[in-house]
């Protein structure tokens, strides 16, 4: 497992600006920081090295045709 990444209020503010969210006030940024800080802990559970998947259909990893 990776060390949990961290995220700052400035980084959240940059993401919000980049997405163009209207009316992003301090309360929204504070809540977004809280939620994404929790998310960072979860993302650390993604495996550091996922096996190389060279199948072209790997994104849709359910049976198609």
């Amino acid at each position: 497992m990776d060390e949990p990444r961290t995220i700052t209020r400035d980084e959240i503010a940059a993401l919000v600006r980049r997405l163009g969210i209207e009316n992003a006030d301090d309360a929204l940024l504070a809540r977004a920081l809280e939620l994404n800080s929790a998310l960072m802990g979860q993302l650390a559970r993604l495996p550091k090295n996922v096996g190389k998947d060279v199948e072209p259909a790997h994104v849709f990893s359910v049976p198609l045709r």
Partner: protein
Amino acid sequence: MNDATALATATAADDVLAYLSIAEAGRLIATKKLSPVELVDAHLERIARLNDRFLGYITVIADEARAQARTAEAEIMGGRQRGPLHGIPYGLKDNYYTKGVRTTAASRLLWNWVPDIDATLHSRLQAAGAILLGKHNTWEYGTGLGEPQTDLPVPPARNAWNADYFAGGSSSGTGVSVAAGLAMLGLGSDTGGSVRVPAAVHGLFGLKPTYGLLSRAGILPNSFSLDAPGPITRSVHDTAVALEAMAGADVNDPTSVERPVPRYSADLDGGVNGFRIGVIRRFHTRDVSGDAEVVEAIEAAIEVLRGLGAEIVEIDVPYSTQDYRLVTRVIGNSESLAIHEQDFRERGAEMGKVLREKFMGSLAISALDYVKATRWRREMTLATDAAVAQCDAVVCAGPCFKVPLADEPEATSAYMIGSGTCVFNVSGHPAASICTGFDTNGLPMSVQIAGKYWDEAMVLRVAAAYERATGWRERRPRLA
């Protein structure tokens, strides 16, 4: 007759009609002993009497349903019978497009939106002669993890067995409507358990089919690669009949698959003698410590199948429900934000708190995280398939806890997040929820039956054998 007696008499009469199975109603209609008009009227009267309490429907189309019932009656009397669904009343989760009928997704953003096309599955049910009663309550855009969504334009649906308890989700209105006899068939959609969990909390049968078996065209998406539409019914046979009418490729859904559609209802009585049924216990023992009553009911269900002649074998997967859930979160939330980006940017304040915070809380998921999750999903899918492929069918936990009270957000979230349902959204296998009895609060418990890709027929056959052996489906909620 006084008012109370009249009400009791009316209730008893429409109880009989509303709780017929689709097969029973179909036979009565086909032999002209029951009119679709009577059947639809009985349902509409129940909806008028009970919907304010249980909130299963957002929109009811009584006039249209009655007109369609008269047409069905005329066709049948004229000898033009379309099949076992002709004249059968059904409802749709309110994320299915319905031409000329508003489709709200329980959201302020769509509250007055009227599509100009029908969802493919709705069209197929209409072609089979089934009659739409209305649109079912849901969590906003079919999203959420059990947190009460009390700031939407319609309050949450309530459990038919006890209105104080959790109604599941996101196809909550579909579950309560079928359980309360307000529809004989309901269609929901399932991204992590949203068909199977409402079925579980209502003692119903809910099927998430193999990814690609049922068209998703005309269903508001939640997650492109995880969503699957599915029926909720009171019996396995009812689902089999509905599936026969709906399955098959659709040019409007490139992820649907061209395959012959089996007669799912034909083999339901074959039993399970000699079948190899795998049991995955880790979901309710290692990953989550399930409630004792729920675990006992799962073990009892396994013994029922053993008693019917199945060979029970222990199997395992190398991933936890938390792993599967994380993959669904990273993939599902990324795809969901991509779908709703413009609305989130411009109309986020009109969204309910749960939907808005789902997007706010996903801002930091990177493209690399998404691709990594899809690769991990591939590994999980292969490992899950390796386990499933050893057996004719698989039994494992869906929800691991007793149905919680609706106003306990930590408990309702734990109920959803701890469920083993998301495993099969990740892998794409067919999986169903079936009732295993009732807990000490009188609320239903359940287990999942899963199968090999495209082998819904086996899932249904195993479920039907269990259903016949136990008779849980005969119980009805006391709605008075």
